[in-house]
């Protein structure tokens, strides 16, 4: 104890050194070291299986581990008894929406139950409960059974129950996964408030890289190891470069030309996004332009890379990612790429008992278009897909898929589409090739063409090396590519993907998207996919947002962002220190919805220059140093939060 006090007056709340945890033969955590300082929000970021949950459970004292040491509040966690000593000061919320709650109990009963477990005195309980319920806007639902809450509300209730004994350290395992954007915003606002008012320390994990900027410091985890650790800026500095974005009408051609020089390249909607390992923007632009000489290129821009880019660069450094050449040329005997409308929904409605899961949803997807359906868990995305694929009859409305009417020709639709379902649902006790053969035969591929068809989709999805392996032995990313291959084996014109990349690491996701772009651009396949990764939504040509069964937006990502900037204003990114008083000052002055992002603040502004000047004067008047105020492109999450709130306001007004 004395020793840590000598190092700094603020000893870390959590200190992890060389942590190792194995589950039978599987290594979950492989020598992780990190330290969480008091009063900071520390992030653990990584895909499924990176070791986040094991690490958090070990810190919370609910998981035994084999090697290394963990100290929480200077107490070494090496036994059950030792963990018991600090458990009163820790709040732990495990992964999964409301999994630690009791579905039959009401909101209030759940809170009371946890308060009793934690021996919170009656008098204190009443005031804390009132404060937390108000903060989470759950006070209206005190008597509602937990099972009737939406996903976002369940998660907020989980947070309230975790906080009822006023812990000094909160450990939250993927609190925002599958939660709608508004609840997610609420969640971060609550965390910010707790940080400010009570100085709590938070260890939070997430699978969303775009949430990384919310953290003061973070660790990128992959395969049980720390790839990088520190403030977001430090991680970005570890992978210096420039992000060049451009629009080229001949998109595939441009991609082919750039790919050999810059492996980190992707098609994002109609644009191309390429990472150039060159810090100077001008030089980077020049290199890209030189390679694209002769092609029509416009709307070129250069910007600093995002954390996702940095993560991918770091991952590539860590493990030489094998690159399979997988550009599959069109065959001459292929039917020409289809044209026209591939999927059409007109006023689709579906009721379950007394609950309307999907309400008057209309949209259309053209051949060769990648259409994204976004929304939280329970928003109705999967129900829409089930109706369109003919699994579920609609209560009302109409639709056509691949030229067949979904009300009468469900059978024809099933033969013409490919479908990749939410949870991986191929046969894990069979090999890759056996799975492919099975689905090829089910779709009626004849004996003579079976091998050729399979070879083709194997090449396209780059799974040639694992053809004779059992699926159970394959990592997530490759399994998803196999699922895609199985869905493509009969050459469908329309492809449905239900959250295909959940839990896949960023490199795996990027490769998956490369294949999708190829399918859409070269073969003219229409792709409808659902996702809850906002960063992934950017890749779609068009986006539709579903909220509570209704479609509340439907446009290209750029148009959606433009509309937001017109309606709500621009996003100003403020770097100021100290950041918490700055946030308080902005809130007190009623400046456009300030939000904390790690050590920065975001504010919405209609008149950029005037607002910028006002902020400077305001903050400097309060003794806050303003380093920088820059204009930031709004994210899709900003768009959706705005849309959902506008919809809620309109409904409340009626």
């Amino acid at each position, binding site marked *: 104890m004395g020793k840590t006090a000598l190092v700094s007056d603020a000893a870390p709340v959590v200190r992890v050194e060389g942590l190792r945890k194995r589950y039978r033969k599987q290594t979950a955590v492989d020598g992780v070291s990190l330290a969480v300082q008091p009063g900071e929000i520390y992030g653990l970021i990584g895909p499924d299986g990176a070791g986040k949950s094991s690490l958090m459970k070990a810190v919370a004292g609910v998981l035994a581990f084999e090697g290394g040491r963990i100290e929480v509040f200077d107490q070494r966690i090496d036994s059950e008894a030792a963990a018991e000593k600090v458990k009163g000061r820790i709040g732990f919320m495990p992964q999964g929406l409301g999994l630690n709650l009791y579905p039959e109990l009401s909101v209030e009963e759940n809170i009371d139950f946890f308060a009793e477990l934690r021996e919170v005195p009656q008098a204190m309980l009443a005031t804390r409960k009132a404060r937390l319920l108000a903060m989470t806007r759950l006070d209206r639902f005190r008597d509602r059974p937990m099972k009737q809450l939406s996903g976002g509300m369940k998660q907020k209730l989980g947070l309230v129950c975790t906080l009822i004994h006023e812990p000094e350290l909160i450990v939250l395992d993927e609190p925002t996964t599958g939660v709608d954007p508004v609840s997610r915003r609420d969640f971060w606002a609550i965390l910010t408030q707790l940080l400010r008012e009570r100085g709590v320390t938070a260890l939070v994990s997430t699978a969303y890289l775009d949430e990384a900027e919310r953290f003061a410091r973070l660790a990128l985890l992959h395969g049980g190891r720390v790839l990088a650790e520190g403030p977001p800026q430090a991680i970005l500095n570890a992978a210096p470069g420039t992000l060049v974005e451009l629009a080229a009408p001949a998109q595939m051609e441009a991609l082919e030309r750039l790919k050999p020089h810059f492996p980190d390249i992707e098609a994002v909607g109609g644009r191309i996004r390429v990472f150039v390992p060159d810090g100077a923007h001008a030089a980077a632009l020049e290199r890209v332009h030189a390679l694209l000489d002769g092609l029509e290129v416009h709307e070129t821009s250069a910007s600093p890379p995002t954390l996702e880019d940095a993560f991918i660069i770091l991952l590539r450094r860590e493990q030489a990612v094998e690159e399979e050449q997988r550009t599959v040329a069109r065959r001459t005997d292929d039917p020409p790429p289809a044209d026209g409308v591939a999927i059409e929904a007109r006023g689709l409605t579906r009721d379950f008992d007394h609950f309307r899961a999907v309400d008057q949803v209309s949209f259309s997807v053209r051949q060769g278009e990648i259409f994204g359906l976004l929304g939280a868990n329970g928003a109705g995305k999967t129900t829409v897909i089930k109706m369109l694929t003919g699994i579920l009859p609609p209560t009302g409305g109409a639709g056509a898929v691949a030229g067949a009417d979904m009300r009468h020709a469900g059978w024809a639709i099933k033969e013409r589409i490919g479908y990749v*379902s939410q949870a991986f649902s*191929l*046969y894990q006790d069979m090999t890759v090739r056996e799975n492919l053969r099975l689905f090829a035969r*089910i*779709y*009626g591929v004849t004996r003579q*063409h079976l091998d050729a068809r399979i070879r083709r989709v194997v090449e396209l999805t780059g799974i040639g090396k694992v053809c004779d392996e059992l699926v159970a032995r394959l990592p997530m990313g490759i399994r998803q590519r196999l699922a895609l291959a*199985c869905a493509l084996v009969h050459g469908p014109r329309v492809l449905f993907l239900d959250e295909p990349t959940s839990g896949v690491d960023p490199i795996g996701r990027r490769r998956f998207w490369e294949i999708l772009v190829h399918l859409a651009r070269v073969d003219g396949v229409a792709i409808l996919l659902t996702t809850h990764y906002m960063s992934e939504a950017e890749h779609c040509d068009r986006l539709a947002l579903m909220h509570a069964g209704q479609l509340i937006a439907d446009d290209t990502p750029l148009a959606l962002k433009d509309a937001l900037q017109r309606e709500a204003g621009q996003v100003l990114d403020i770097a100021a220190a100290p950041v918490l008083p700055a946030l308080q000052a902005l809130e007190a002055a009623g400046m456009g919805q300030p939000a904390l992002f790690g050590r920065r603040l975001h504010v919405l502004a209609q008149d950029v220059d005037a607002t910028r000047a006002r902020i400077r004067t305001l903050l400097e008047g309060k003794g806050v140093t303003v380093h920088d105020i820059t204009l930031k492109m709004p994210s899709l999450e900003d768009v959706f939060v705005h849309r959902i709130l506008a919809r809620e306001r309109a409904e409340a007004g009626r």
Partner: protein
Amino acid sequence: MMTPNERMTSRLGLWLWRFWAMTLKELIQLGRDGLLVFAIAYLFLFDTYMAGNVGMNLNNAVVVVHDADQSAASRELIYRFQPPYFKQGGEVADVRTGQRLLDTGGALVVLDIPPRFEHDLLTGRPTAVQVQVDAANTVLGFLAASYSSQIIGQYGFDQALARLGQSASALENVPIVQSEHRVWYNPNQKDAWFMPLSELLVVITIMSIMLPAAAAVREKERGTIEQLLVTPLSSLQILLPKVVAMTLVILLGTAASLGLVLHGAFDFPMKGSLTLFFTVTALYAFTTAGLGLYIATIARNLAQAALLAILVLMPMIFLSGAWTPPEAMPAGLRQAMYLSPLYHFIEMGYGILLKGAGLEVLWDSLLGLTLLGAGIFGFGVHRFRRQFG
């Protein structure tokens, strides 16, 4: 893109092509499930083999004697309790010890010979010996009691003859009723014929419920059914291959069991037509699979399916005559036996294999099996289609 000629166009051809693909898939999956393969092999081979060795015979039942007489006569009586039925367990000093041995399972029979036993016999006075039998297992207890009384009765008879001064040959002059047995179908009354066949038929029942239930519930548990539902497969195309594949496996197991265990190890006669037997077995396994499919619609995982299967199996076996002869059932239950498909199957199994009977005799059992089977299968398919259709 797929060109039109790459896809099968004939409707029947396509149906069969899909059917073949799905059946193959079931067989591959079954083959990869080591535990299930082991269970199948164990039940068909080892379990039936054990059934042939652990019949309900009185074998080496331990006899403990309290001989208060210690005479030549008492020793002769004791000596008559011989293997293979009985085994001498020694003497005890008092009756209490003998009873304790019964309590602890140290003895099955306690023979208590009173003092003056020889004296009474020689003086021509009636005398009694006490036999205490542990009838916790009623069958064994019953056998031990009746064999003991037979031995003692014979001894008394011999003693009486001796006392009359007659030799055994003098019996010819004594009026006596001799019963002459003719045992048909299993002339040596070998348990090793009856028990393994009975067991085999029960194993076939277990398998024809469990295997399709496991195959269907596994799809549900792992979510693979979702993927199948979006393919152009009808629910019948999903479930029929499961039933067909599992029936094939059951026929294979039955053949192995008949050939290796019943015929190989126990010289089972196999009198009737094997073709008829396998046809009936296929019909039985196929239709009983309906119960498995139904279970799969209720159960959420393999453990639940197994428990439900036991729930269905117990009355089916109980009402089949495999464990209790139909004649021993109370009237109500005897009628209920006609509702157990296993009852008809056992009738036919014994009829064909032991008695060499053909359809001209067994047509009523076949009719019963067919009607019941069709009902069960139809019900299972109906429930399955309602859930996954």
